Structures are given as C-alpha cells and as structure tokens.
C-alpha cells in the first residue's frame, strides 16, 4: 500500500520535517554586512569599522568592569600572537561609556595587564560614544560580545559571552580559508 501525500500522518511528517529544518537550523553564523560605526581610540582619534576592511576583523565589545571581558583578553592575546596582523586585526571597544567607563579606566586596565601580568595587549582599543551607539547595535544582550567580520566586512560569526581561543581560531581559520 502506497501512502498518499494527503494522508494525515505523511502530511504531518512532511510538516514536521520542514518545521525542524526551519527552527532547529539556527546557527550563530551570519553573513550580513555589519553596520559601520565610529569609535574613539585611546589617542583620541576617531576611527570607523570600515577603516579596517580588507582584513578579517575580530570585534570585541567589552567593558572594563566586566570580569569575563578581562578573561577574554587572554584568549584575544593568543589570537594576536598566532595570526598575522596582515590577516587579522582585533578591535576591543569599551561599550559601557554611557555607564561611566572612561578612557583613563581603559588605559589603566591595559597598563595593569602589562605591569602585573607582563602581558602587552597589542591591538586597537577604543571607546563607544556617550549614547552607547555600538552597545545598542552590537552588545545589547551583554558583554563580551564577539564578532568576526570577513575581509569584505560581512559578519561571519557572532557570540555573546566569554569564548575560548580554540573556538575563535576555528572560525578564523574558516573565514581566512574562504578568501
């Protein structure tokens, strides 16, 4: 006996199959172009995200007062050490400026890593504006919020929360191999 497509169980199974594909296929990978933003570097210079297009960008939306963000620095340091700066650039942006975090607090944190842990955080650091523009766009759920942009500025990967180097490196290898 051959089941027809309008049989209730078959129809139900088809519906179930489609439903599962649609709703359980959610991944954290995205391929949309990230919204450009400007930020202020610790030197007081204004930079834009698009200034860094042409390299794979690791955007780290962080805050000085956020403990997991400090742990994330160790993982970002490994990326800084293991990937060429011609291929990958890291941007750590303090997105809690609207809550009182300042350039001097960020600088103190970088200095503390250097003086107390002998670790130089040798990538670009910057600050969001007082309105929290970057926070609202990229870190509304919480910090650290990590994004990987491909060389054309498309968001390849995003993750909210602390993430280990191995996981980030796997994504970086994927996006670098695509070029």
């Amino acid at each position, binding site marked *: 006996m051959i089941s027809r497509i309008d049989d209730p*169980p078959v129809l139900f199974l088809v519906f179930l199959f489609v*439903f*599962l594909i649609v709703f359980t296929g959610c991944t954290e990978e995205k391929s949309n172009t990230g919204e450009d933003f400007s930020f202020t570097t610790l030197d007081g210079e204004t930079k834009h995200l698009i200034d860094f297009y042409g390299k794979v960008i690791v955007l780290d939306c962080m805050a000085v*007062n956020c403990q997991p963000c400090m742990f994330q620095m160790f993982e970002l340091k490994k990326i800084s050490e293991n990937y060429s700066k011609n291929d990958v650039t890291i941007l750590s942006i303090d997105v809690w400026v609207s809550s009182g975090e300042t350039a001097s607090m960020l600088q103190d944190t970088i200095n503390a890593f250097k003086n107390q842990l002998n670790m130089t955080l040798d990538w670009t650091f910057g600050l969001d504006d007082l309105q929290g523009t970057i926070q609202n766009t990229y870190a509304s759920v919480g*910090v650290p919020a990590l994004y990987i942009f491909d060389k054309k500025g498309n968001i390849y990967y995003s993750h909210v*929360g*602390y993430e280990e180097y191995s996981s980030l490196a796997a994504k970086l290898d994927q996006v670098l191999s695509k070029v």
Partner: protein
Amino acid sequence: MKNEQKFLLFVIVIGIISATFGSALAAEPILGEVTLTPEHPTKLSKITFTANIIGEDIKTVRIIVLECNATAGVCQNNRDNQTMQHIEGSLYRANITLDYTPASYIAYWVYVESNTGATTTLPDTHGVKLNLSVTSNNGNNDNGGEKSPGFEVVLFIAAVCGVVILLGRKRFR
C-alpha cells in the same frame, strides 16, 4: 641659635606637609558599609542598596550594578537610575531592579564624585561580587545566557507524540 632656627624651620615644614596631607586625606571619601535589602537577593528581584559614605565635598554618589552569568561568561549593565539619593547624614540609597534573566551573580561599585570633579571608586576597582540566591529554575533562557534546551525540544517531543498517536489510530482502522 642657628640650631634653634633650623629646628623651628623643620617643625614649620613638617606642619605644612602634615596639614596638606591631612586635609587631603580628610577630603577622601570613605565607604563605611553597603547594605543590601534583601540580604540575599535572587535574580530579577528589587534590591535596595544603602551606602554609608563619610567625607566632605561629595557631589554625587552613583552605584554601578552588573548582572552576570558565570556559565556563559556574560555580563549586563543594569540600566536603572544609578544615582544614589542622599537620605540623611552619611547615608545614600538606591533601588535597583535586576532584569537579566540568566544572571547568577551581581557585582557592584560605588562611585563618589566630589565638587572638585574628582571621582573615587569604592571599595576598589574590583567591586563587590555577590552570588544570587536560587529560588526557582525555569530552565529556558532565550537571551544569550545558558545554553539549555529551549522551546524547540518541547515542540519536538509534542510532534513525535502526535505522529505516534496518528500512526496508532491508523493501525487500529
């Protein structure tokens, strides 16, 4: 006579230095105690922070409260009004309502701004960390916190049950 003059000069210099540092130390605000009501808050609860701050020339007192999930390593900044109101004497108070569902702990700091513009962070830059009491566990979180099974598992189980019932009915026909 010369020795007497030197001694007098020494005493004056020491006096000036002591007075300068003494007044500076007196101006530095001191955080006596921060009490929380309730003492052991739970997530999504309302907390009253009362800070005892001793010092002169205090312009504003703010409290920063972070809500974090230790498992996912995520922190959110509570965006409630962070200014602590001056109640009486050295007491300042603020009501904060926690709003981050996956939060497992909070951390808080008190910032004191003086009329001269100087800001002091109390008790130190690391803040005070406090684990939130657990009274219930709903399991499902949907805003970037714990990666526990969510609504799709429930729907999947319901769908499987539906298929089993339909197939069972057909066999009985």
